[in-house]
C-alpha cells in the first residue's frame, strides 16, 4: 500500500541526517591533511572539472589559513561546499590521488574540502570583492549550479545579474534533485545565501522560460542572457502499465521529498526502482528511509556497467536495498488501476554498444516482482520543445554553449545532456568568461 507519514519525527530526522559527518575538530582534519603529499601539477586537481587547487587548499588547512583555504576552493568552484557533499569523488579527485597507486587509502579530499567551506558559509566570510560596476546587465535563466556559478563570476566582475528561477528556491539539482541526507535543505539555503552575499545578484523566483518569460523579453532588457535551465524531463520506459497509479518518476519523487517534507511523501510497502544511476540510488535509499519495507533496484546490465559509483551502491546496500542485475522492465501489472507487480525480462550481455558497454540482450525468460510502487530513474531528457519554441538551434534538445542567437549563451545540463554538479559549475565559469568578453567588446 502506498501511504505517507509512516515514521515518527525522530525517525525521519535520523534517516535524513547528514550521511558524511564533517571533521569535528581541527586536529581530526589535520590527520588527513598532513598525509597529503602536496603533489605538483596534481592529478586530483587535473581530475576536477573546476580545477580546484587541491594540494594548495589542503596545505592551507595545515598552516591554519582557513580563509585562504576556502578562498582557494571558491575561486575555482563557488559551490565547493555543495560539491564536497555530492561529487562522485572516487571517479574524480580522490580516484586520481597518487596514494591509490601505492595501494593506500586516498586523501579524503571531499571531507577536507568540506572543512573550510562549511566554516566560510557558516561564518559568512566575505572572501570576494566586487570590481567597480561595469554598467552591464546580464539575465540568467535557472538558479542551479551553472547559473549561480556564472552569476558569481559576473557579479565579481562588476556586472548586475538577474536570475530567473522557476522554483520557489534556488540551488537547482542540489536543492531539488539529490538525496536530502547528502545535502540537507538547510545547507542548500545557506550555500545559496552565501553565494548571493557578494551582492549584485537578484533572484526572481517562480519565473519560468516559456511560461511567464520569453527569451526575446530578456534579450531586449539585458546586455546578454545565460541559459542554465538544465534538463529535467524523465525518460519514459515505453512499456505497458507505465501510467498506472503507483508508477512515479524518480525526479518527481525526490523533488517532493525536498519540496514537501518527509512525512508528506507517500511511499509503497514494496518498491521497485528502475535504473542504476545516482538518481536511482537516491530514490531507492530515500524510499527505504521514508519507511518502505522492501526496495529493489532493477538494472538491465551488470555492476560493471552501472553509472553510479561503488560508494553509492554501498549506501543502497547498507540501506537494505535489494539489487537485481540483468533485468529490463517489460510490463507493469495493475489491479483496479494500481500497481501490483513489475515483470522484467532477464537479460544477458551481448556485443558492446555505442557507449562501449556490452549491451543487454533479452533471454526470453522473465521475472516477476510483487511491488506496489515503481520509481522510474532511467535518465533525463532535455527540454526540447522549449528550446525549439524559443528559436534556439539544438541537437535532440541540447543547445550549444554559444547559441545561434548573438548575446545568448548556454551551459550545464542543457548543453551537456546531464552531467555532475561540478561540470555545471565549470560550464557557468566558462560562460561567464564568454559573456564578459561579449558585453565588453560586443
Amino acid at each position, binding site marked *: 500500500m502506498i501511504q505517507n507519514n509512516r515514521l515518527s519525527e525522530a525517525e525521519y530526522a535520523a534517516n535524513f541526517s547528514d550521511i558524511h559527518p564533517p571533521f569535528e575538530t581541527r586536529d581530526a582534519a589535520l*590527520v588527513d591533511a598532513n598525509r597529503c603529499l602536496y603533489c605538483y601539477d596534481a592529478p586530483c586537481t587535473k581530475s576536477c572539472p573546476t580545477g580546484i587547487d587541491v594540494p594548495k587548499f589542503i596545505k592551507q588547512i595545515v598552516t591554519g589559513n582557513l580563509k585562504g583555504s576556502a578562498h582557494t576552493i571558491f575561486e575555482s568552484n563557488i559551490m565547493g561546499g555543495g560539491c564536497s557533499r555530492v561529487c562522485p569523488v572516487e571517479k574524480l579527485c580522490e580516484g586520481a590521488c597518487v596514494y591509490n597507486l601505492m595501494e593506500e587509502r586516498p586523501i579524503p579530499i571531499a571531507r577536507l574540502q568540506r572543512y573550510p567551506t562549511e566554516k566560510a558559509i557558516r561564518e559568512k566570510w566575505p572572501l570576494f570583492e566586487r570590481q567597480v560596476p561595469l554598467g552591464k546587465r546580464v539575465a540568467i535563466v535557472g538558479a542551479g549550479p551553472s547559473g549561480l556559478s556564472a552569476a558569481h563570476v559576473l557579479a565579481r566582475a562588476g556586472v548586475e545579474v538577474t536570475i530567473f528561477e522557476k522554483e520557489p528556491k534556488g540551488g537547482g539539482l542540489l536543492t531539488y534533485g539529490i538525496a536530502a541526507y547528502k545535502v540537507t535543505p538547510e545547507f542548500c539555503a545557506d550555500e545559496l545565501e552565501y553565494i548571493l552575499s557578494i551582492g549584485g545578484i537578484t533572484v526572481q523566483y517562480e519565473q519560468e522560460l516559456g511560461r511567464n518569460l520569453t527569451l526575446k523579453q530578456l534579450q531586449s532588457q539585458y546586455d546578454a542572457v545565460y541559459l542554465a535551465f538544465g534538463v529535467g524531463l524523465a525518460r519514459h520506459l515505453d512499456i505497458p502499465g507505465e501510467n498506472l497509479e503507483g508508477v512515479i518518476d524518480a525526479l518527481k519523487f525526490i523533488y517532493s521529498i525536498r519540496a514537501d517534507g518527509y512525512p508528506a511523501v507517500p511511499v509503497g510497502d514494496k518498491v521497485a526502482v528502475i535504473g542504476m544511476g545516482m538518481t536511482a540510488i537516491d530514490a531507492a535509499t530515500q524510499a527505504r528511509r521514508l519507511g518502505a519495507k522492501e526496495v529493489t533496484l532493477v538494472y538491465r546490465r551488470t555492476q560493471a556497467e552501472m553509472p553510479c559509483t561503488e560508494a553509492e551502491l554501498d549506501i543502497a546496500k547498507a540501506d537494505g536495498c535489494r539489487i537485481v542485475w540483468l533485468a529490463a522492465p517489460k510490463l507493469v501489472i495493475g489491479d483496479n488501476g494500481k500497481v501490483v507487480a513489475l515483470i522484467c525480462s532477464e537479460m544477458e550481455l551481448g556485443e558492446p554498444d555505442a557507449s562501449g558497454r556490452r549491451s543487454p540482450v533479452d533471454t526470453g525468460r522473465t521475472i516477476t516482482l510483487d511491488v506496489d510502487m515503481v520509481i522510474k530513474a532511467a535518465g533525463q531528457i532535455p527540454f526540447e520543445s522549449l528550446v525549439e519554441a524559443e528559436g534556439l538551434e539544438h541537437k535532440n534538445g541540447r543547445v550549444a554553449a554559444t547559441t545561434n542567437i548573438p548575446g545568448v549563451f548556454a551551459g550545464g545540463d542543457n548543453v551537456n545532456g546531464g552531467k555532475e554538479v561540478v561540470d555545471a559549475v565549470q560550464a557557468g565559469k566558462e560562460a561567464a568568461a564568454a559573456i564578459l568578453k561579449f558585453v565588453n567588446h560586443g
Partner: protein
Amino acid sequence: MANLQTDFLGIKSPNPFWLASAPPTDKQVNVIRAFEAGWGGVVWKTLGSQIKNVSSRYSAVDYHGSRVMGLNNIELISDRPLDINLREIRECIRLFPDRAMIVSLMADNDRNSWHELIKKVQDTGAHGIELNFGCPHGMTERGMGAAVGQDPDIARMVVEWVMEAATIPVITKLTPNVHSVVPTGRASVEAGTNALSLINTIQSVTGVDLDTFIPNPNVGGKSTFGGYCGPAVKPIALKMLTTIAQDPVTSKVPVSGIGGISTWRDAAEFMLLGSTTLQVCTAVMKHGFRIIDDLCEGLGNWMDEKGFGVITDFIGRSVPTLTHWEELDLNYHIVARIDPDKCIHCGLCYIACEDASHQSIRLTQGQPYNEYTIKEEECVGCNLCKLVCPVDSCITMVEQRVGPEYLNWKEFQRRGLPLNDH
C-alpha cells in the same frame, strides 16, 4: 643475539642506554621505574646549589603533524633537598646493583663547594660523576653551567678541582653553545677528566604565540631563552660528537653521546661516530620509559645482521669517513634514475629540481598522471629528488664516474683543470 653489555671506564651496564640528567632521573620513583623497564643506567638530575623553578617550563616545535620534533626547557637543576637526593641515590643502587648510577653535579664556583659535593656523592656508592658545564639558562647568570663550559680556562680549573677529590670516574658534559666544543673538551681532558659527554641543550626560542605575541614558554607574560633538545638537534650533536672523536686530545677518552636519540637507529649512528654509551631524555619525556625495549631489540637485531657481536665492534667505525671537503673525490659522479614502475606521478622530484636545483627532470604531460624522467646530461647528482620522493627506492642514484682515478680539489687545482661548463 648480540651482546649489549657495556663497560664505560669500568662502569658496567647491561646495555648502553642511560637516561640523561633531566626530569626523568630526579627521584627514586622514576629511576626505579626506569630500571624495571630495562634501562642500563641513569645520570641523576644535577645536584648543586638551591634553586627555585618557574611555571611553565617547556615548549616544543611540532612539524607536519608530528609533536615535539624539538623540545625547549627553562627548568633548572634539581630543586629537591640534597639529603633526599643522596638517600634515594643510595637506595636505587642497592635495589639495582647491576645498573650504572652516574650523578650530575654543578657546585657553586669554588673549590670547596665542589670537594664537599663530590665527597657526599661518592659516599652513596655512585659509580661516576658527570660535570654539568652546559646548562644554558638560570645557572649561567650565577657563574655556573654553560658559563663554565664556554670558557676552556674556567673549565680546566674546575675539572682540576674535581679530580683532586674524585675517586670514581668523572665525565665532563659539554655545552654546544660555543663555536666549537673542542677547546673546552681538550681543556677538560688535559685537566684529567676521564670521559666526555655531549651535547647539552642548545639555546633557543621555539616560537612566538601569534595571539598573545609572547614567545614560548610563557611565564606570566614573559619568556626566556631555553635549552633545545630532541630529534631536531640530532644532526648538530652528531657533528660535534665527530669533532671530539677526530681530535687527537679529546679522542683519547670515551664519550657518552647525547642529543635527540629517540630510536635504536639514532643510537647506532651515535656509536658509529664514537659514542660508547647513549643518553636519552626527550624521547622518554614524550613516550615514557617503555621505549627501552625497542632501543635494545632494534640495536641487537641490527648488530646481528651486520655481524657485530659486541658494541665495541663498531664504536667509532664511521669516524674516519668524515673528512674535509677538499679531500672529496671530484671524479665521483652519480645521476638520478626514476623507476617508472614505482613512480606515483606526484611531481615532487620535478618541482624540486626545476625550482631549486638543476632543471634535470623532464615532464611529459598526461591526464591525470604526468611522466617524469631524468635528463642525465643535466643531472649533477645532488640527491634532492631522491630526498623528496615519497616512495622508497623509486629514485636511485647511479654511479657514473667522470674519471677512473681519485681526484681531489687540491690536485684538481694543481693540475689547472677547467671548472664546470655553464
